[in-house]
């Protein structure tokens, strides 16, 4: 056992305690940690208050009145409430979180006669005395909401050549883009408000009538119980878990492949085999890289947890998910590393390895390619069948069990674990057989058929 541990420690040390690994697998995630943890600070925009006067030119002042209401603080709050209504019972929290990112508004709306001197007002914008000038054509509020021919020809002759029925807006060049869009929205909404009121309707009442309510979904599970439905963000949870499994197992299994090939190509393998058996060597190497894999998993999982806590989404990850993750991680790691150790032992260099890794990778890409379909229908035929095909088991199962909308039958979970671990042991056994023959084989790399033949060697 001490020999296996010596191999494992060397494998770990020369993979994980290198500058390249520390930079790639520790420093970068750590930087991301920091980035996520301080995201609220880093991404907090420099929100400046929108202050100033907007001059509105309209015939009868109805637009001005509407614009005044629209820019008032009450309307701003109402709009926020509308915006976050979709978050259901978490709307208040969402609004609170979003508030720092929204510009504060302190606008004054002044009315001006249509006969006012446009040039002078433009000069005032230039001088910074006012921030915007909006010219409302009276047609905008006409009852048929159309434009009569007289006004059309008048418009055609207008100096600016504006389209009829369009608000002409003049702005200073120093306004922030979000301020411009806010002014735009407000002025356009004011038209709707003015029109409604002209028709003798209560705009506020209409808004209330038109407001679409939010939906609080409850899913009825096959057991007849109610399950709380989760938000749209939850669809990323299964993908997140599977990617975590993928990255952590494949990175270290890849290290296992390269270190095995390296030991073969630099001829140190025979020195090692004079001291340890091929089985001891392979076990040590797999265990050493397992530690590397766990570190990778911890780094990225930690990063994800920090992110979820920062943005208050931790409720998306129940504790059972973490249990499944641990169970399927062990299964996935040993399956993939057994494959890589077998392949690494059979070839002389990385180039040769590609021809054997290609088909293996194609199979293992299946969960990535089918992610969406499996998650959409976690109890469908595709998902169920792929859940019991050995190298895919952990990846497909983690997708299924972390999909919040549908639960997977317990018997399927148990069978996947029992069958998966049995298959894992089988794969490690096969890898050991191939490893024993392969590590001392030089020359032409074996074909997949020859690999199968090696399995029969005693």
């Amino acid at each position, binding site marked *: 056992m001490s*020999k296996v541990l010596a191999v494992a420690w*060397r494998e770990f040390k*020369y993979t994980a305690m290198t500058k390249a690994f520390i930079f790639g697998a520790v420093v970068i995630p750590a930087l991301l940690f920091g980035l996520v943890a301080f995201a609220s600070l880093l991404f907090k925009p420099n929100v400046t208050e929108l202050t100033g006067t907007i001059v509105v030119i309209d015939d009868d002042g109805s637009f001005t009145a509407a614009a005044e209401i629209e820019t008032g603080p009450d309307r701003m709050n109402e709009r926020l409430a509308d915006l976050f209504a979709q978050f259901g019972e978490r709307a208040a929290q969402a609004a609170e979180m979003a508030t720092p990112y929204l510009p504060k508004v302190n606008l004054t709306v002044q009315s001006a006669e249509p006969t006012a001197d446009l040039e002078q007002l433009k000069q005032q914008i230039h001088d910074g005395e006012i921030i915007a000038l909006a010219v409302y054509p009276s047609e905008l509020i006409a009852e048929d909401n159309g434009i009569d021919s007289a006004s059309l020809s008048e418009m055609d002759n207008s100096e600016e050549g504006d389209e009829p029925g369009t608000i002409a807006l003049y702005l200073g060049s120093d306004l922030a883009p979000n301020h411009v869009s806010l002014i735009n929205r407000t002025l356009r909404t004011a038209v709707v408000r003015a029109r409604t009121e002209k028709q003798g309707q209560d705009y506020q009442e209409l808004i209330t009538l038109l407001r679409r309510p939010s939906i609080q979904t409850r899913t009825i599970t096959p057991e007849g119980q109610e399950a709380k439905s989760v938000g749209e963000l939850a669809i990323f949870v299964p993908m997140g878990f599977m990617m975590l499994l993928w990255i952590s197992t494949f990175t270290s299994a890849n290290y296992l492949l390269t270190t095995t090939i390296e*030991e073969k190509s*630099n001829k*140190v393998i*025979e*020195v090692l085999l004079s*001291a*340890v058996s091929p089985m001891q060597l392979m076990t040590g190497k797999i265990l050493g890289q397992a530690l590397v894999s766990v570190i990778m998993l911890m780094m990225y999982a930690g990063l994800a947890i920090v992110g979820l806590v920062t943005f208050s989404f931790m409720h998306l990850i129940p504790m059972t998910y973490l249990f499944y993750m641990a169970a399927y991680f062990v299964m996935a790691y040993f399956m993939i590393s057994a494959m890589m150790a077998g392949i690494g032992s059979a070839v002389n260099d990385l180039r040769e390895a590609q021809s054997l890794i290609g088909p293996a990778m194609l199979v293992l890409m299946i969960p990535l390619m089918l992610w969406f379909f499996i998650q959409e229908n976690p109890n469908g035929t595709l998902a169920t069948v792929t859940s019991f095909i050995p190298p895919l088991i952990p990846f497909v199962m983690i997708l299924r069990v972390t999909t919040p909308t549908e639960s997977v039958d317990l018997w399927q979970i148990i069978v996947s674990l029992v069958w998966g671990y049995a298959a894992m042991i089988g794969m490690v056994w096969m890898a050991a057989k191939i490893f024993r023959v392969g590590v001392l084989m030089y020359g032409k790399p074996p074909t997949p058929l020859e690999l199968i033949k090696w399995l029969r060697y005693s």
Partner: protein
Amino acid sequence: MPEFSINIQNVNKRFGLTHAVRDLDLRVPVGSLCGFLGPNGAGKSTTIRMIMSIILPDTGSVEVMGSDALRNKDRIGYLPEERGLYRKMRVGEFLHYVGRLKGAGGADLSRRINHWLERINLSEVVRHRCQELSKGMQQKIQFLASIIHDPELIILDEPFSGLDPVNTSLLNQLIRELNEQGKTIIFSTHVLHQAELICDRIFLINHGVKLLDSSLEEIRRTFDPKTIIVEPLDEYVDLSTAQGVHAVHSSNGQQIHELEIESDADPQAVMQAVMNMTQVRRIELRRPTLEDVFVELVMKDEGEAAAEEVRRELSHV
């Protein structure tokens, strides 16, 4: 305690159509220093790999230290022909690692590493990475890796290949010392005179067949000398006419002649005949070298053409 460290009986090994080792019997007495000789491709490394249980024989039995190499890994030191180092590992760490894998450890291992590095004049490289060493240095470190755990049986496959004369001589000395300490040592080489210098026992193998298995003393006794060195006072004398002389080889510009005697001739009688023909400054019966023995055995076994081929091969070394 078995009498033999290695006992191979009737071993055969084929690789496809190649019969690498045929009906091989080999016994290495405990405490001996054995040379395992033969030209390239003779089957030496295959035999050594079978001794180490790295490959298994098709037929026959291989006994190492009373059982097999797998059960005695920690008691055996092995320097493979295909040897390497971890390029990024530091020398000291590499030796520690190999030592630990061989069951050694602790302060004793550290002490041994320092001692041996000093012995091969490489104390200063203990913290160097293996890739920073010259090829010769790497060879010496690989040798240390095979003996660092103080094994009882040491198997060295072509330990001298790639070494310069100074390091070859150092390695010779170390091998002799280890043998004097009671270690059984077997090493393969295709450089025959190398073995002649230090071995007390010789195995000769060609095309997978054992040609000779004997102590050096016995070989010298058994194989008659076939060459007489003569330095005549009369430089014009024709020694090829002396009775029993098969051929004369003369060095250019020197008065020293090598007389190759006929296979059935008595060397003493030929020497007498030469002295009767002319006065000599010096005349001596040259001891047969392993090369001579090897060529003779091949000739006996496979004929003149094969012997010529072996001679040519050995002269390239």
